[in-house]
């Protein structure tokens, strides 16, 4: 079943067109990964899909009653709002203590219910975010660089959790990550973004695609992506961006 479909989606952020003419869809139960260099529009696409950014052109169609569990890239928690983990899990929908304990256990942090949100470490925080997303019994789980701040083993463990959750809930997963090799291995489909959809397909297909290699280099399935890109590469598309990226 098709959960969400974007057609001809053009998105702007802060008055700048970040993504053009994106066609994509996510089916029930599949894991789709977005890859692309910094500033290529990965987070913007996610915001467009959840409805946080209104499209300049194109449409986003969601299946009726679609429940989205969203884990944002970062969540600033300052000391002003007092919030325990269990209270956080009950936003916006309340859950009973047993369900919360189950979700926290599933996410790998069973003992944190009474902790204050802002005292959590990076890894604990992401797991609590995952627990919150799980409590919504989502049809679609969206993870925007959810392993940020986790070390390699921590990230690998996190992805195993996601895989387990996917099988358990039979939900679709859309994720963004920089850990290319880990993420791509776990994905059914990969979308390579660079202001538009460069290429897409199974991880194997994308890895061999010239567009992907142009962006990430041929050795990118190894360690972290080096973001070496050639600017003279040829895309089969027509627009007038000048493919300049941040070489950080």
């Amino acid at each position, binding site marked *: 079943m098709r959960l969400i479909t974007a057609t001809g989606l053009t998105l702007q952020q802060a008055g700048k067109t970040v993504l053009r003419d994106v066609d994509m869809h996510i089916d029930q139960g599949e894991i789709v990964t977005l890859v692309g260099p910094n500033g290529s529009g990965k987070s913007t696409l996610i*915001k467009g899909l959840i409805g946080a950014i209104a499209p300049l052109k194109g449409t986003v169609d969601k299946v009726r009653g679609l429940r989205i569990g969203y884990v944002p890239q970062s969540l600033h928690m300052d000391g002003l709002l007092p919030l325990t983990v269990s209270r956080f899990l009950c936003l916006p929908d309340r859950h009973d203590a047993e369900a919360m304990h189950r979700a926290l256990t599933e996410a790998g942090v069973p003992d944190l219910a009474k902790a204050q949100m802002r005292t959590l470490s990076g890894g604990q925080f992401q797991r609590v975010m995952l627990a919150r997303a799980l409590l919504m019994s989502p049809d679609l789980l969206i993870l925007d660089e959810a392993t940020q701040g986790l070390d390699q083993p921590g990230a690998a463990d996190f992805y195993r959790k996601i895989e387990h959750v996917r099988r358990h809930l039979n939900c679709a997963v859309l994720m963004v990550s920089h850990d290319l090799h880990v993420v791509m291995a776990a994905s059914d489909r990969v979308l390579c973004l660079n202001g538009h959809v460069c290429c897409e397909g199974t991880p194997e297909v994308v890895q061999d695609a010239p567009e992907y290699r142009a962006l990430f280099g041929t050795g990118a399935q190894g360690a972290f992506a080096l973001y070496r890109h050639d600017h003279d590469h040829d895309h089969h598309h027509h627009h007038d961006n000048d493919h300049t990226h941040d070489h950080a």
Partner: protein
Amino acid sequence: MITITTMTMTTHMTMLDDFMVRAGLAGIGTALAAAPLGCFVVWRRMAYFGDATAHAALLGVALSLAFQGPIMLGVLAAALVMAMMVQGLSGRGLAEDTLLGVLAHAALAIGLVAVSFISGARVDLMGYLFGDILAVTVFDLGLIWAGAAAVIALLVWRWQRLLTATLNPDLAQASGISSRAEQLVLTVALALTVAVAIKSVGALLIGALLIIPPAAARPLARTPEAMALITAGIGSVSALAGLGASFQFDTPTGPTIVCVAAAVFCLTALASRLRPINPR
């Protein structure tokens, strides 16, 4: 039965005849309305927004005097227009704090000028700037409590959504909650609170009543709900203690209430340093 009812009615009326009782009830009503809203003002860093809206109250006073309508209605209208204007202008290039600073001070200045134009007769300007809680009538009291009830009902109704939107707009959006709609709820609540508070603390000190009690409550609370309740307690105690102190020492009431709240803030800040209930 009828006799009893009449008797309670009579004591009731005589009780409300006492200006100190009316002032106390007005203070508590204002504190209760300001408590949950003040928490959101603190959580969302809307302090300047509160000030700008409160300062527009003076323009509302001028309006009411011009059309000889009830003060609170004019204040409500002016505060609502101002809050909407701030919300509409924000995020359009100019730094938010600069924009709010311009609007807050401009509203105050224009309000002062407008009142001076309108008042052919003498107007107690100090009363509108710093409140005149001792002059609260039974009619005012009814308006204050009705306004406070409306603010509290509105915030309780939207509580979960407001908290989610406060946490993160995208997180809210993913659950189908529009952060703009929730912002509008807070805007309406703010305008109502300003109208409620104009009599008791006045246009200049409404901001203080919104910020200081929640700031004082913060170190004592572990959840948002606890913070709102503790804020209500601190606000009410400050109102009553400030009223008593101003009677005792013959000081202006509104500022005295704010002084008491500030003193409570110092105490809880100090206490949380000595014995951290909720370590930072």
